[in-house]
């Protein structure tokens, strides 16, 4: 188990958090114009890198707020956490 830094609450145990998958996936700007292929890309296709990954977490058992994190999927080490309104930091 590892400590995860909630941007609002500080470090808390991993079990308090809920995982939300890839971060920065924007809802389609003009949904009515999307092709089936584009809808499939939006709904089902996400990056799956071995290494640095920007993803969403929620402090489910704490403040219940969502935030973003940059984490290494090979080592599981969190490299940065940041609020949803902040840009992805350079690592």
């Amino acid at each position, binding site marked *: *188990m*590892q400590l995860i830094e909630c941007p609002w609450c500080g470090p808390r145990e*991993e*079990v308090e958090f*809920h*995982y939300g*998958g890839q971060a920065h996936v924007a809802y389609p700007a003009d949904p009515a114009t999307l092709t*089936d*292929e584009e*809808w*499939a*890309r939006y*709904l*089902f*296709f*996400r*990056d*799956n*890198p*071995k290494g640095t*990954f920007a*993803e969403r977490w929620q402090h489910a058992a704490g403040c219940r707020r969502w935030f973003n994190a940059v*984490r290494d*999927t*090979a*080592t*599981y080490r969190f490299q940065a956490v940041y609020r949803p309104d902040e840009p992805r930091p350079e690592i």
Partner: protein
Amino acid sequence: MTHAGIPELPAALWRNPEPKRSYDVVIVGAGGHGLATAHYLAKNHGITNVAVLERGWLAGGNMARNTTIIRSNYLWDESAAIYEHALRLWEGLEDDLGMPILFDQRGVLNLAHSLQDVREGVRRVEANVLNGVDAQWLTPDEVREVCPIVNTSPDLRYPVLGATYQPRAGIAKHDYVAWGFARRADAAGVDLIQDCEVTGFTTDGDRVTGVSTSRGDIAAGKVALCAAGHTSVLADQLGLRLPLQSHPLQALVSELLEPVHPTVVMSNAVHVYVSQAHKGELVMGAGVDSYNGYGQRGAFHIIERQMAAAVELFPVFARAHLLRTWGGIVDVSPDASPIVGLTPYAGLYLNCGWGTGGFKATPGVGWCMAHTIAHDEPHPHNAPFTLERFTTGALIDEHGAAAVAH
């Protein structure tokens, strides 16, 4: 229950050849699926100028890390067809491979702990029977007859309200399965090449013409990806984006115990699955860790929850000692079903997305992949499992029958 000892291996298993510079078919990944594909390419199609490339050691990835459960009690017609095809092959596999694999049809129970579980289970039993898959619905008393150590007391937080039962399901000795396929493929002339990591692909337009490896470039008429959790990493080299997320999945074993557990028990709701290995270890698995990962390890709290579920369901386990834990990396697709077949690249074939359930499919998917490669078109059993289904919407939603939380 069979209490077979561990049989002697044949004196020779496989050669350890240097890679040639060119093959008709290169298979990436010498796990169960890659080795089975090589075996059936040789046996069913006479294609033997084949290399199976493995970045580590043969069958050292998920094949060495799984809980060896074999069953075909899936809900949808497409899944039932391919898993039942596999189960029928399992039933003749010792003869085909000429080697013991300790396939033991001791049956599998999938427990129900809520009214919704019961309804889903009964529905799945009916669907299985319609598909020619053996299946029964058992009451709690009948569950206790099949597996007396299951706690069927109504006082449990999540009481056992019944179970689906597939008597033909079982377990096999996973290492022997891999080595049996490897030995047969090797004898047919297939080169099994370990310590050979695929780092990229060579292409000619939209055709894949070979692979780049840690031991040089290898040309190939056809390339098949059988790399389980690392398939995304490979496909990224081609700019081919796949609807997969890789997660750690953990399992563990107890010390060796007297035979106490005569069948396989799975519980989706409280989440543990247990069988007793031939030597006597209790082999247990949990759900996947929620986050993406490639580290071949997982979080400790998953094991804690799994242990809590196991001890509540099996009070006799309370004094068992945990011997070791391990993690594999599973590639999960959005509908919890595999992706097997052609790709946008000519000469490139995909076998991935098996999530937590690839082992049971080993001979079946090897058979179908060999057909797909040989004929450049899918076998009828893997025809529904296309990459295109995520665009067309023809999903095969097996989250329920996949039976492992992901």
